[in-house]
């Protein structure tokens, strides 16, 4: 989890050299707009020392969900502009090729024709894979937009996918909410993460248009729960299901779902503005009463250790953790903090939390909890929900498959 010094990893330039020697350069057919005109794949055998830097794209589940949180995240939402399924397939194939390449530390070609723009933007050439993960989710409008089955896949919509219903005390910006496809890009190096999201956007030209883009960060000493911008630990309760059976209970969808969703999960997203200035003028006692936990240790009220089982009766009834426990539901939190300059009218910092949680059944695990909190959470005095989204993230990819293939084909 801790950022490794870059020298330890094998840089992408080394991959380029190695693959040139080994002759493993793979030229894929030019895509519609020539997005992936050529790629250079790292030579797996010779770069074993960089293994720790790489998180495999393939597996039973998508990476980036139970993966320990990397330091940096970009969250991008796209609207598909193509009119037919084949254009979606084309884009998803291009995206998948790029993901395969960049998560393993390779790059697209950067300059084999001086007259044309390079295929790759190049800023990761000397950087390792940096634990890059790229996680895809599909919004309700992907399956059916304003009642229209655009791509002939409405019948394959997953069981619980719908926009998060209207909640009390929210002031959502629709231009920052929802979307057909949501991509979560995480890495230990911000430049590596940005490179990925930038090139995903670039490749979408003619097929999709980026609707919104958020960037976040979170940092903690390895093994410790990271803290949010209010200074409180965020994600302590994740430890309660930190096992493969726990994941099955909380995160991985399966029962009653279409085949492609098995081993997948629902991503709930809320962009929550946090009023830092007000919070910082609040007494420690009020801050702790707001959460129902002690600030420094992270222990629940009446307990001494962060991971001691919380006792709801010991906390104020409107405290955040009390309400979370009262819901008797568990979710897998994977939130990042964000900052975005200042509000020029007040000089207040525009900052907050990109709340992300993964769960197998949002109807049961997430929406009732959110509603209860939006109604009674003491934290509401210091926060405001400004954007929202719900996305169905398919199960993992097998090598040779492209993302969304089992939805779009067969």
């Amino acid at each position, binding site marked *: 989890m801790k950022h490794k010094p870059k020298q330890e990893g094998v840089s992408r330039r080394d991959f380029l050299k190695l693959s040139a020697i080994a002759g493993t350069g793979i030229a894929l057919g030019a895509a519609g707009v020539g997005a992936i005109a050529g790629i250079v794949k790292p030579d797996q055998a010779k770069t074993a020392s960089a293994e720790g830097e790489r998180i495999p794209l393939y597996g039973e589940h998508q990476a980036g969900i139970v993966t320990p949180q990397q330091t940096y995240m970009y969250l991008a939402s796209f609207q598909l*502009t193509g009119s037919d399924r084949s254009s979606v397939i084309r884009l998803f194939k291009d995206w998948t090729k790029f993901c395969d390449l960049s998560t393993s530390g390779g790059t697209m070609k950067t300059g084999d024709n001086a007259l*044309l723009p390079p295929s790759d933007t190049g800023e990761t050439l000397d950087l390792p894979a940096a634990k890059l993960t790229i996680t895809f989710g599909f919004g309700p409008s992907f399956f059916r937009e304003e009642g229209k089955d655009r791509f002939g896949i409405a019948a394959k919509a997953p069981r619980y996918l719908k926009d998060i219903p209207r909640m009390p005390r929210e002031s959502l910006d629709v231009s920052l909410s929802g979307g057909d496809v949501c991509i979560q890009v995480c890495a230990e190096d911000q430049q590596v993460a940005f490179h990925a999201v930038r090139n995903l956007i670039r490749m979408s*030209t003619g097929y999709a248009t980026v609707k919104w883009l958020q960037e976040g960060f979170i940092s903690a000493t390895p093994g410790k729960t990271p803290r949010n911008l209010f200074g409180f630990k965020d994600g302590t309760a994740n430890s309660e299901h930190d096992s493969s059976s726990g994941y099955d209970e909380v995160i991985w969808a399966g029962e009653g779902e279409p085949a492609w969703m098995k081993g997948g999960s629902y991503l709930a997203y809320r962009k929550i503005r946090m009023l830092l200035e007000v919070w910082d003028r609040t007494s420690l006692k009020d801050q702790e009463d707001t959460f129902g936990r002690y600030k420094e240790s992270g222990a629940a009220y009446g307990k001494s250790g962060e991971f001691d089982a919380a006792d709801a009766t010991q906390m104020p009834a409107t405290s955040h953790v009390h309400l979370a426990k009262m819901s008797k539901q568990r979710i897998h939190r994977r939130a990042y903090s964000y900052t975005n300059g200042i509000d020029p009218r007040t000089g207040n910092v525009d900052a907050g939390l990109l709340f992300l949680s993964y769960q197998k059944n949002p109807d049961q695990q997430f929406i009732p909890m959110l509603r209860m909190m939006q109604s009674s959470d003491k934290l509401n005095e210091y926060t405001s929900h400004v954007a929202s989204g719900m996305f169905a993230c398919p199960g993992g990819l097998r090598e040779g498959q492209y993302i969304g293939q089992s939805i779009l084909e067969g």
Partner: protein
Amino acid sequence: MFKRLTTAASISVASVLLLSACGQADTKEAAPAAQVANQQPADKSDSKNAVAGDVGKLQEEVAKLQEAIGKKDAAEVKRLGKSINDLWLSFENTVRQTFPLEYTEVEKYEMPIFSASAYDKIDFDSLKGNADKLNTALEQLKNAKPSTANTSEILNKAVDNYKAFVDEQADNLAAGTKAFAAAVKAGNVEQAKQEYIKARVYFETIEPIAESFGDLDPKIDARLADVEDEKTWTGYHRIEKALWKDGSLAGQDKYADQLIKDTEELQKKIKELKLEPKMMVAGAIELLNEAATSKITGEEEIYSRTDLVDLAANVNGSKTVYLAIIPALNEKNPDLASQIDKQFLATEELLRGHQKDGQYVTYDKLSTEQIRKISDQLSLLSTLMTQTASIL
């Protein structure tokens, strides 16, 4: 050779010049036919006969059009303008691939005829000229032989064709600027506004060429934001401010006189310019970049708000390069030519949707979503056009 905008200019007498980015509408309906025609014949010589039949049909329609023009039958002229376009769309892909030089000739006279069919007022004189020239172009097409020129010949020919277009634009710019200056000096604000919009089109169509003359470009085209000291500010945008913001032409005579001088100097320099294929292709991409940066953001025409006019002129200038290099594209990357063709049509159709009574709406009338849509379309077009450098 490339008289596309000259043709449009002659229509402009009837104040419809602003439609510089006109193309074929109804692309959706015509698409299936075009796709069928797109299937390249195995032997190029076969396609000549196939095209000759279609050309014959088209000539019959053009004859009817000439007759209707003679009778000044506006309704019939409009109907034929559309039917000629439909017919042309049904086989133009085959023509583009087999007879690229003849293709551009037909395109440049066919397009204004179709565009004119969408207007309320019809300029019969200008239309007659176009119909006659279209007929000649079709005759040439009927007798054309598939091109056998090698790549460097093809490219040189493309540059020659494009240079002729650029020269004519420079001529039109100088002449249009004189008309503009005359209205300014006469103190006729309304007339000057109309002339301003017309003259801007010529400039924006060849903007990168004009910009290559580093001393002249700022004198002609600098925006207030570009100049260090407002007192030294001259050119179009200086008078634009007087017309649209100050509402008074007092003190503008000296700028008008200077502008005549500068555009005539530009005209002279452009005539002397030796154009290289690389510069031409780079210019086409530069034009789209101009459209996608300063025009789409409304930074170019901050007083007149006629940014869409400039944007469409940029697109049209870029398309002229594309038309000139079709033979080279056919040689190296025919699939790219088809894709670009499709996206120019889509761009023109999108822009046409923002016209009212033959004029582009002002920038402030566009919603954020509409601007975004144009921007996305320009991104796609630019990405494709960038690939044309592979012909060099």
